């Protein structure tokens, strides 16, 4: 009996060992995602897309050139992936070793075979009971971060998760804050060195915003930067009374990182209550600001406030883009941002000094940005019980949908909106976890108030517009550009558009059935063919040229 069992065991062990050996021979374990790969950004071989903006600059500009203005009309769909959940994509997918990692609405995420669109694993996180969640503007998620063999994902109930890339299993789970107090998280994490950087949403719920860094291995919190200074801290006196405690200043769009300066750049959300001036007299730092933080410590290096004492819900949560420019003959390291308040800004990213501040849509509330960097505010645009008509509207001149920057042309591409609104304000008592806006904005309508929009190409050294491609209604889509001179974006009616980034001429379009809302396509190489991956509605669609032969790589 004993002998038989041990003999069987020996056979099993031998078989298992042989099986392992065969597996090892057939495939090499994919190398871990390294910090060097993250620093390299979008590699010229197009083999990966590892963070929200493609690279730490957030340029969303790919070096790939197989798809060109001449052949873009020959794009054909390769596959379609459907979520089978309610809600729509606002995510930027990641690509690594021919596998896509995608977050969706309702705390769901997937690993998908990039060759076929077939699911490899799915992760679902149960949402808190009905009424518990306060995510103001959709139960969405903007994407994963990645390092080593771990993915990082924020959740609607204000957690940060680390998932095993191979299985989707939770490795660790860190609580950012208590969701029942109005905190939520939708941001795509940014991985810098050994830390995962995230922020919290909830600017309409009287939160006190913060940016956090967590140890990628353990999930332990490394530092926290409150976006509203506490008592005794510089800037706390820009909030009358105790209004700082519930001033909002949320963070829900991924920032940029400069490795040389070791600085993180994040756009901060609106002050709350959104519209009621007397509830929070003062500049309300660091709401509506760009902050530069030391990536190791979270200490504030500098800030630039776009809209001091904002009364129009103009979060500065647009994607900041880094570039090196020549302005007035001088080389400058800049950070650029097309703001919800109607102005386009180019700042010196070493010190936060204003280089360019120019309107890029019809803007009524401020005359200009003064030499001191503050807007010169015009009278008559303070919301009240009767309402005041102001341009831009609440959604803003642009918003969280990412812009793109082509360094070879030195052009900034943004989907801009031409919409005005009547803003109302009234006093509102704060109740924890409740919506706290102190007013409302209503989009202006009528024959003289047509809402429209355009893709605009802006020279960041001057703020001048080079070209525009107008839409019949404002688009909420992001922009991807490529080194071959293409801009991929979408309109509000659901068309995927390919536009010549040198001229603004439309080259190709396809009706996706739902808009590319709040995100842009990504692009990568797969088996020798450049792919364009388009998140729209509840689908992901992969496109490639019909007449380029596949070169299968099955290592």
């Amino acid at each position, binding site marked *: 009996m004993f002998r038989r069992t041990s003999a*069987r065991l020996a056979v*099993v062990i031998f078989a298992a060992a042989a099986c392992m050996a065969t597996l090892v021979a057939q495939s090499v374990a994919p190398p871990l995602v390294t910090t060097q790969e993250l620093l390299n950004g979008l590699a010229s071989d197009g083999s990966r897309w590892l963070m929200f903006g493609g690279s730490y600059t957030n340029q969303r500009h790919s070096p790939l050139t197989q798809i060109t203005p001449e052949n873009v009309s020959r794009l054909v769909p390769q596959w379609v992936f459907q979520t089978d*959940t309610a809600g729509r994509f606002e995510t930027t997918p990641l690509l690594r070793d021919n596998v896509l990692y995608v977050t969706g609405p*309702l*705390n*769901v995420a997937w690993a998908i075979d990039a060759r076929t669109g077939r699911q490899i694993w799915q992760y*679902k*996180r*149960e*949402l*808190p*009971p*009905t*009424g*518990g*969640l306060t*995510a103001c503007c959709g*139960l969405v998620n903007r994407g994963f971060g990645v390092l080593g063999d771990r993915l990082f994902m924020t959740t609607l109930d204000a957690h940060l998760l680390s998932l095993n890339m191979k299985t989707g*299993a939770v490795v660790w789970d860190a609580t950012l804050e208590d969701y029942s107090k109005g905190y939520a998280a939708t941001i795509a994490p940014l991985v810098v060195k050994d830390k995962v950087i995230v922020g919290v949403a909830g600017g309409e719920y009287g939160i006190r915003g913060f940016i956090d860094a967590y140890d990628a291995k353990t999930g332990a919190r490394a530092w926290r930067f409150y976006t509203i200074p506490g008592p005794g801290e510089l800037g706390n006196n820009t909030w009358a009374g105790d209004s700082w405690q519930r001033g909002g200043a949320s963070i829900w769009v991924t920032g940029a990182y400069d490795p040389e300066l070791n600085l993180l750049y994040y756009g901060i959300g609106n002050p709350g209550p959104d519209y009621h001036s007397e509830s929070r007299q003062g500049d309300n730092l660091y709401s509506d600001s760009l902050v530069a933080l030391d990536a190791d410590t979270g200490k504030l290096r500098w800030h630039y406030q776009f809209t001091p004492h904002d009364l129009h819900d103009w979060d500065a949560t647009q994607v900041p883009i880094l570039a090196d420019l020549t302005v007035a003959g001088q080389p400058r390291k800049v950070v650029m941002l097309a703001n919800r308040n109607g102005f386009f800004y180019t700042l010196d990213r070493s010190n936060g000094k204003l280089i360019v501040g120019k309107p890029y849509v019809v803007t009524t509330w401020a005359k200009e940005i003064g030499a001191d960097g503050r807007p010169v505010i015009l009278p008559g645009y303070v919301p009240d019980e009767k309402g005041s008509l102001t341009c831009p509207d609440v959604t803003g001149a642009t918003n969280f949908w990412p812009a793109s920057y082509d360094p070879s042309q030195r052009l900034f591409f943004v989907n801009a909106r031409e919409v005005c609104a009547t803003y*109302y304000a*009234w006093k*509102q*008592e704060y*109740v924890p976890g*409740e*919506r706290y*806006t*102190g*007013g*409302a904005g*209503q989009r202006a*309508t*009528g*024959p003289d108030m047509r809402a429209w929009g355009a893709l605009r190409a802006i020279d960041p050294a001057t703020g001048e517009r080079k070209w525009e491609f107008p*839409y*019949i209604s404002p688009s909420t889509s992001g922009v991807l550009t490529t080194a071959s001179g293409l801009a991929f974006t979408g*309109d509000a*009616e*659901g*068309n995927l558009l390919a536009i010549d980034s040198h001229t603004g001429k*439309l080259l190709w*379009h396809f*009706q996706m059935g739902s808009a590319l809302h709040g995100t842009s396509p990504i692009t990568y190489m797969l088996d020798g063919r450049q792919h364009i991956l388009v998140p729209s509605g509840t689908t992901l669609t992969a496109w490639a040229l019909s007449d380029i032969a596949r070169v299968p790589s099955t290592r």
Partner: protein
Amino acid sequence: MRWIYFVLIVVVVAAANLVAQDVYLKIPADSPAKNPLEGNSDAISAGMGAYRVRCADCHGMDARGIRGPDITQVWARGRTDAALFRTIRNGVPNTEMPAHPAPRTSDLDIWRILAYLKTISPATAAAPGPGNAATGEHVFATNCIACHRVGDRGGNLGPDLSRIGAARARAAMARQIRGTMGSFRTGYEPVTLTTPNGQEIRGVKKNEDLFSVQVMDTRERIQGYLRDDLRSVSDEKKSAMPVFGPDKLSDAELDDLLAYLENLQGTNAAPSSAR
């Protein structure tokens, strides 16, 4: 090698547990028959804010109706708290009134809005406006029915009016008929398409994008056109609906017509559970 089967079973069970995590939300079975927050001053002020942000676009800052109906009259006309709660939660199918599902809209949010509305609603219904509904039906049959449908009769070029009495304030209907309403309802914007050989197609716009336009023409043909196949697509400034000034419709006839339209509550229409 039975232990291998055991390991496999453990793995399968673990996987099944992972899959069983459900993201779909449970909607509470029954809501209270009476507003639990009625008269609560905190709820009323929160409800005012929520109302203005989420409802006032259609129902007006004073809730007396713009595109949507006057909702200060709903209690006086016999609607219950529970029914109004369901209307907000589920919307009204086939109308512009959307559903407000959880979790974005909590039960609390809805009760607060209703608590606020109650404070600005009279206990008794407003006296009906002047006019004779029976005469108004004749006015309707003469002037309106070619384009507007009530129940199973009438045209399709203009909006279906089977429940217009529940959907529009009387004053808003009067403005529309007299031609003093500034804007067009989505899906009924007048448009003229010109074909390459100069033929004009007039109709109302059902949809459009950068490359195409979908219309119902004056013969009620629904059809999509590529912009590239047309010489021009021009939006008309004037509504497809004729202006009925006092020369065409006397004040008395207008009152009769409005009395008829106010009576159109959609009661003949299919499932009324949402109302």
